[in-house]
């Protein structure tokens, strides 16, 4: 893809990408912004190359996830070197209404894979197969995380069991 085409794609998916980066950064908007910017730079300078093996958005979400993981590892190393006794847990997002705050809290309680699958399927409206591609896992594994994640989320939200 040419640079102009890449920029156009990135612009088209910018808002959705920010939502996914926010999820990957444990709802820390500043980290999400950094991750998103780093992702764009990697895409544009060719360090992350789109080969057309999946939809652009699916591939882009995979890159965002990798960049966010690398950023988390760097942050953990920095905390270790600076001997910080506490993990820097971002504060709750200001401006959330109670239902949204409750959903974020419930999502944070889920295992990472379950949270990622639910965010990709419900928030980003990907199919489970696309979510599996973005996460680099098998479809069956994604299905299992999807079902377990839904059940765990319902429990955390206090939603009644299905009749």
């Amino acid at each position, binding site marked *: 893809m040419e640079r102009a085409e890449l920029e156009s794609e990135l612009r088209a998916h910018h808002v959705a990408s920010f939502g996914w980066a926010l999820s990957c950064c444990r709802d820390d908007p500043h980290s999400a912004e950094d991750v998103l910017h*780093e992702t764009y730079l990697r895409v544009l300078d060719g360090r992350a190359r789109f080969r057309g093996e999946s939809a652009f958005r699916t591939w882009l979400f995979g890159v965002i996830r990798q960049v966010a993981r690398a950023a988390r590892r760097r942050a953990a190393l920095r905390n270790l070197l600076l001997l910080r006794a506490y993990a820097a847990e971002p504060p709750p997002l200001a401006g959330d209404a109670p239902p949204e705050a409750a959903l974020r809290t419930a999502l944070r309680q889920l295992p990472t894979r379950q949270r990622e699958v639910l965010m990709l399927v*419900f*928030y980003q409206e990907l199919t489970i197969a696309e979510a599996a591609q973005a996460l680099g896992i098998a479809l069956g594994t994604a299905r299992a995380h999807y079902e377990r994640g839904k059940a765990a989320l319902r429990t955390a*939200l206090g939603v009644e069991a299905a*009749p």
Partner: protein
Amino acid sequence: MSADREDDLRARFAALRSVDRTRAPGFDLRPASRSRGRALAWSGGALAVAAVLALSLAWRGQAPEYAPATAAAPEVMVRLAVDLPSDFLLDDEAADVRRDVPQFAPETNDEVPFL
């Protein structure tokens, strides 16, 4: 699982999505000043560590050299060995100690096998 229940989850996530849309920053591909700041912070940290190491090495260079403890004079060693209290050792052991005690030539401090 009922479709209604999944719809309820979808509605919750849709509300979350619409809230996050308002938080999304503008699309911007300019080089990040924040990243440059972090790079500077890391470089500064590395320089500080290097400075501390250099100071430490310089201080060690100025410190007096390690001097191993000098051995006791041979005469003292011989006296200590020969004057071991006899009630501390059995007779045979005391004899062994006296027999095996190293002897030194007083002029050179070289150990000699027999005196």
